[in-house]
């Protein structure tokens, strides 16, 4: 593929994703939450009662669609190649911390872009933190950071996660009574199931084809001055911005934004954890879902780490509360400690896999 074609495809994909994202909000998803990989995995963790925060429990068909869209298109294109074994446990815990950081900010990188496109300036503070985290990650990558080589795995190993999402969806449709569903709060707000699933499938297919990645975009600019992936990021922002203005959903400012808070330090540091952790994982939470659909078992482990992180974040009050009429919102003292601790642990993991490994080699 040529440079120009790559860029054009990414921009067209980004425009489509921006439109679909705002459409999901118009169809019932929470504000500025057409897609949020962190929030949706957290809601799924709630639906299966890994966490019991009553306002964030729902089986989000978008997540199921994203994994299956990538799974189906990679099978059709001959790109379904199960591989794994590159430090799976390390990846699990990095993803765990990425989720804590995301839930302190209240969004993954994808939702950060959607929040920005709706005028939520808290997301701008978060973007600065996110880019800083990626820059730190790039420092270690350029010094030789590696989680080691992945090896080819059996087809059946690669199918496990996509198959389990199909099982989850079948149970969700056939016996919804076994799950917990929010009756109020963000978990109770959702687009019709078929719309959510279709949106997930379409975006999953497009993200697999274009290798779209929120972390990769900024990382490639820093490391190799390549703007291709960032083009997709900017296109999502631009098309969601136009959609939000057209539908009256654009509201510029810090205060009163949906499912958000204005604790600037913690928005910055929460997304710094996400940027650094995702740079070490080699991709943002969206990219991990897509890679898991392609049979990458390391990414499948990362997805499980994200879900576990979400469960812990709510069970131990690490996740931030949103701004409301009665509260300014933001992280608890536990959330703050968890973010600082995560930064320290991620720096330790990065250092060990950069400098000490080199001496062993």
């Amino acid at each position, binding site marked *: *593929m040529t*440079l120009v074609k790559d860029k054009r495809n990414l921009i067209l994909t980004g425009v489509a994703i921006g439109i679909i994202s705002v459409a999901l909000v118009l169809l019932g998803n929470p504000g500025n939450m057409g897609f949020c990989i962190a929030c949706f995995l957290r809601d799924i963790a709630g639906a299966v009662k890994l966490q019991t925060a009553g306002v964030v429990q729902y089986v989000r068909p978008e997540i199921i669609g994203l994994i299956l869209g990538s799974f189906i298109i990679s099978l059709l294109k001959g*790109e379904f*190649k199960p*591989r794994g074994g590159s430090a799976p446990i390390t990846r699990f815990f990095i993803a765990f911390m990425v989720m804590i950081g995301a839930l302190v900010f209240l969004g993954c990188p994808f939702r950060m872009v959607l929040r920005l496109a709706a005028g939520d300036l808290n997301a701008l503070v978060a973007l600065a933190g996110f880019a800083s985290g990626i820059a730190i990650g790039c420092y270690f990558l350029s010094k030789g950071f590696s989680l080691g080589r992945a090896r080819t795995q059996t087809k059946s190993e690669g199918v496990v996660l996509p198959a389990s999402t199909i099982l989850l969806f079948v149970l969700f449709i056939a016996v919804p009574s076994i799950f917990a569903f929010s009756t109020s709060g963000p978990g109770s707000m959702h687009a019709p199931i078929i719309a959510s699933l279709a949106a997930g499938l379409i975006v999953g297919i497009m993200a697999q084809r274009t290798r779209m990645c929120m972390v*990769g975009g900024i*990382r490639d600019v820093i490391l190799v001055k390549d703007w291709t992936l960032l083009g997709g990021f900017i296109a999502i922002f631009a098309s969601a911005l136009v959609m939000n203005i057209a539908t009256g959903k654009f509201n510029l400012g810090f205060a009163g934004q949906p499912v958000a808070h204005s604790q600037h330090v913690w928005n910055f540091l929460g997304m710094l954890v996400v940027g650094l952790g995702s740079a070490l994982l080699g991709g943002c939470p969206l990219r991990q879902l897509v890679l898991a659909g392609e049979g990458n078992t*390391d990414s499948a482990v990362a997805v499980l780490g994200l879900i576990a992180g979400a469960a812990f974040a709510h069970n131990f009050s690490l996740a931030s509360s949103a701004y409301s009429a009665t509260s300014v919102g933001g992280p608890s003292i536990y959330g703050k400690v968890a973010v600082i601790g995560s930064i320290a642990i991620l720096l330790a993991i990065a250092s060990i896999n950069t400098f000490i490994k080199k001496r062993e080699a």
Partner: protein
Amino acid sequence: MKKIDCRGLSCPEPVIMTKRALKEDSEVAVTVDSRVPMENISRFARALGIEPVIVESDGEWTLTLKK
């Protein structure tokens, strides 16, 4: 010619290793076993004005970059 083995490595490592190798040698052969690093290294090379010579065999790609 410098040869580097990037099989099993995920992005951005293959691109960084290629970049480093190109600083040490004017001709580099990189072996990868996945389409994404193959595309990324090609894109990186073209951005530098180098047209990579790509040979595929058995699910692996060898890209030869000559400055």
